[in-house]
């Protein structure tokens, strides 16, 4: 494995000028990637076709990752195809939902790093000069899903605080409960 910055740079340099997103076949693209990596060229690498994906931003994310894994010099070791297929079909659409415009992944260095760490995290790969702890820690700090979760929790806490203040005001105006003495 190389250092993380190498892979991030790959993402940032995705050659979109060579791709027509509307017409590109994702099945063909992934076939090429795995043909290069494993020499398996007779069957499709995945159990299900991906050509039905019509969202151009999601297609673009496939292109970015295919470019990352197609790179002969990347030193990315072998990984289980099933795990990767699950990532493509489950995690990637969620990332696309959180960061809808695909160009963000290729123009913002932190998002590029996030995408690389996201896929490496799933495939249990650790870049050069990093410990597992460092990798996880750094991933958590830039993970959009984690960020959204924290924001969501903060929002919920704020809403509850607002509700408490509203209830306090309302209850102050309502009658109290009877008690024998006063303070």
């Amino acid at each position, binding site marked *: 494995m190389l250092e993380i910055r190498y892979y991030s740079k790959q993402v940032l340099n995705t050659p979109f000028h060579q791709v027509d997103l509307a017409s590109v076949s994702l099945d063909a693209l992934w076939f090429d990637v795995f043909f290069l990596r494993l020499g398996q060229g007779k069957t499709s690498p995945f159990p299900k076709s991906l050509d039905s994906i019509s969202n151009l931003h999601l297609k673009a994310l496939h292109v970015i990752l295919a470019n990352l894994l197609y790179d002969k010099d990347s030193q990315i070791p072998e990984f289980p195809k099933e795990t990767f297929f699950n990532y493509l079909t489950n995690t990637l659409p969620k990332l696309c939902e959180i960061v809808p415009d695909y160009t963000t992944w290729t123009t913002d260095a932190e998002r590029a790093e996030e995408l690389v760490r996201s896929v490496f995290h799933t495939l249990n790969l650790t870049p050069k000069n990093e410990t597992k702890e460092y990798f996880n820690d750094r991933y958590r700090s830039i993970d959009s899903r984690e960020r959204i979760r924290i924001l969501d929790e903060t929002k919920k*806490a704020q809403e*509850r*605080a607002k*509700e*408490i*203040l509203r*209830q*306090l005001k309302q*209850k*102050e105006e*309502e*009658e*109290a*409960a*009877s*008690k*024998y*003495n*006063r*303070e």
Partner: protein
Amino acid sequence: MSKVLDRNRTPLMKEEWNLELEKITESPYAPMWNAKIGDRIGEEEFLFVTSFQKDLLYAKEHSLYQTKDTILSFIESYQNTSDFFKKQLQGIPWKQNFELIPFMNRDDLQSKITEIIPRDVNLNKMVINPTSGTTGKPILAPNHPKAIGCYVPLIEYSVERFGIRPRHSPKSTFAIQLCYQENTIVYATCHSLAGGSKFAKINIHPNSWKKPSDLQNFLTLSFPQILTGDPYAFETAMQMGIHYKPEAIHSTALELTPALRTRLSKYFQCPVINFYSLNETGPIAYSCPNEPEWMHLLPHDLYVEVISNETGNPLPTGNVGEIVLTGGRNPYIPLLRYQTGDHGEIQYGKCVCGDHFPRLRLLSGRKPVYFQKQNGETVNPIDVARILRKNPIIYQFQVEQTNANEWVCRLSLEETILGNESIWEKEKKAIQVELTTLFGEGSIVHFHTDFPLDGKKQIAFLNSYQTKTEFEDKS
């Protein structure tokens, strides 16, 4: 008062209770009722309080009061549900070193209440009982009917220590609370936790009655076992010549001086029980039947510390410091080393009265201060507090009578108001009208807006004119 069973306010109300209640609410001698308040005790609350009472009696019997070690499980139960607890406990070995836990104070209740209230608690049953107010800093202490319901066994325990057996019958009136204010709520109800026995809060001020003689007749008709109220109300009742012999006087809210206690006991011919209770905690202690200067810690679920003002460390027996509380049963305000602002000393060990819970001797509590109109009538400071507290721009206040017809009103105001002269002028005018009406014709009220808002309990009412006059009379 309505003849309809009021199950919204008193969910367990029975028809026979209602019939008995109507005998006092519909009486020709009844005061002019202006509120309807119930105990809000439903099945769930009833079970909670009966279980609390069982634990209380067991703990009293076996002298099982809370200690630094036994209160840890209470703290642990809130560690993950109250954000305030989480922050206060973060990074400190509090189980091994209880004293490392930072204090919680009155300011926290005002500014961090949304963090204190546990995340998993249902807000629907929240109630707010207004405080009578002698410190000038209103605290909106949210509470739950089940925690307020616990006042019943706690108060009953305290009166039983004086040989009084509360009669749990709708035919009985357990207590009547006396107030003396220009304006306050006046109501009658039944307490489900006392077998439907009746309770009324009345205002002995002439404003509250159709005829002056009605008050005396109403008390005789209602025949309460005990009278509750503050020393100010009892003193006024004596001055008014009220004739009634309750089984006990239950005094709270303000400091009861030994001299007044003796006079009250002689006048009403009954024991006088002094009670220490805070809106944010509920009952804390009651006076020992043998040594009335000392007050026994009442509930079994509160841990009491006495803390040095200088060092913040707990003080050993025999030293005076601030009373700090942990625990309680108010689900909205779990207390974590809560500084009450009250001072006193604590003593442990057996007591001849038979209650071996720790004893507190309070130091300079909340002394009653009265204002006087030029025509000689007295003004209850609670009426002043009522006017100032209802205004949300006022955070803290102090009112001083400086002369026969002059008052100084010191306020700490909301910041946005301080920066806006025209709004403040308008508000000031409105408050001035209300206060001068209360203080009587020809009264003058001066305003200062630089009163500090530092989270400390400040004396809210001063009567320097009275002190000056008393001094001149003596010399």
